[in-house]
């Protein structure tokens, strides 16, 4: 973990509620895809955890959805604004176990961290398939970005307005994969837990206090013991997950 100051380079709207922010600053502590940063926002007490979409050459890219006061304020931030950011939080995805044909499955605002993961896997010489799930065509983002990396991309929309009609699980049968990585809403994670054929890694969300393991605000039970989503997670292996109900 490192505390440092970032300056906003740009902050653009991708869909009705999703924004992309690029910031310049010290990204040296961001060592794995799937990690997150925790941002101090003027006027709000708790920092806001946002997953890292990309991190390279002192530029940090975040894609976030406006869901509350914090992200509302982020969406209004102007270029040049300086932000106090804790970087390098969370364990991130482990790419060493992916095999030759990893599959990445993202739903909605769970898509962004998979971008940096795809980049890393491709750099490691692996053949990356990506399934992205959205409610409807208007909500799609990042499809072209994954294609530009050289990944095979399938998009599923719940209303069938684009790509495969249905959920990400409906697109699963067409792909041949050695391992999978996923991030998205909990119902999707649960469905994938059942529908997937291989081992894999899941990224979880929880309301956090500190984001760096101090407060036990985001603990969960796993087969291997109690884990803090912010510090021991947010990525858990399929085999250790204990669903809450």
């Amino acid at each position: 973990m490192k505390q440092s100051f970032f300056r906003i380079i740009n902050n653009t709207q991708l869909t009705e509620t999703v924004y992309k922010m690029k910031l310049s600053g010290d990204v040296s502590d961001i060592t794995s895809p799937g990690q997150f940063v925790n941002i101090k926002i003027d006027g709000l007490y708790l920092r806001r955890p946002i997953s890292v979409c990309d991190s390279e050459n002192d530029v940090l890219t975040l894609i976030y959805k406006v869901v509350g006061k914090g992200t509302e304020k982020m969406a209004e931030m102007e270029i040049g604004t300086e932000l106090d950011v804790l970087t390098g939080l969370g364990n991130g995805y482990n790419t060493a176990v992916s095999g030759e044909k990893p599959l990445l499955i993202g739903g909605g605002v769970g898509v962004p961290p998979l971008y940096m993961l795809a980049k890393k896997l491709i750099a490691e010489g692996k053949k990356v398939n990506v399934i992205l799930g959205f409610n409807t065509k208007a909500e799609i983002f990042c499809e072209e970005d994954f294609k530009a990396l050289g990944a095979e991309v399938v998009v599923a929309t719940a209303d069938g307005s684009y790509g495969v009609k249905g959920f990400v699980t409906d697109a699963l049968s067409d792909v041949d994969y050695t391992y999978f990585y996923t991030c998205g809403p909990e119902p999707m994670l649960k469905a994938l837990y059942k529908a997937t054929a291989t081992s894999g890694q899941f990224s979880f969300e929880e309301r956090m206090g500190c984001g760096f393991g101090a407060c036990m605000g985001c603990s969960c039970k796993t087969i291997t013991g109690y884990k803090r989503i912010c510090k021991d997670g947010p990525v858990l292996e399929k085999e250790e997950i204990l669903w809450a109900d």
Partner: protein
Amino acid sequence: MGRLSVDLCGLPLDNPIIPASGTFGYGYEFAELYDINVLGTFSFKGTTKDPRFGNPTPRIAECNAGMINAVGLQNPGVEKVISEELPKLKKCFNKKVMANVSGFAVEDYAYTCEKLDKEEQVGWLEVNVSCPNVHGGGMSFGTNPEAAAEVTAAVKKVTTKPVIIKLSPNVTDIVSIAKACEAAGADGISLINTLLGMRIDLKTKKPVIANKMGGFSGSAIFPVAVSMVYRVANAVSIPVVGMGGVSSAEDVIELMLAGATAVEVGAANLIDPYVCRDIINDLPAVMDKYGISNLKDIIGGVK
């Protein structure tokens, strides 16, 4: 003995800054961020007789200038604290630590304190009779002078280390509870634990926190802390450890003027992990600004 040094129940502190229990784990994680030996000491995660997972999540809610937590005393239990956490701490902290203890029955408190009494690393026992997040215990001991006194007496019997009783602000008369603890042999009083608070999510119409209510902390509660520290410090002769919304060197001085011998810093650690180190660094200049030569001279110095 520097300008910042104080004496807490017979043990010297290089400075009065103490990260509060539940916001600093067992210390070694913050040791990755800075040398935690700069602290006066710190109060480790509330420890119970048996291991506890605590409450279901969500356990955290945001508030204006503060937050609510309902962690519910998650901890590995006193045996593992002694066998695993303290040895890890020893590698990065060469001072005495304050052991924070909770329980659900008087015997639990005594059991846990007796175990910790044997540990040379432990300087003080901070006995929490004020946790708002556990049912059938915790806070109920701290809302009644007789029950608080009973816990105090039971703990005093099993330890020779200084015993500091941590009190709840969610009471009509905190002074009577502090006096009862003093009469039962407490060596110090620490206050305030969190206020009971609640938030409701307007989208889901459900409480934000799974446990419905939780403990409200953060700078929002600072004026309540000042008032209670002032009243208790003027009513007892044992040292008072002040806490509640402290996040700056100025806040530390204000609580000490109100009567605190040392000051715990809680929620602020979660927002700014370096805040305790920064407060310690800031103190000399802030003391100069307000004409204070030595911190120990201002304890209870409000006119």
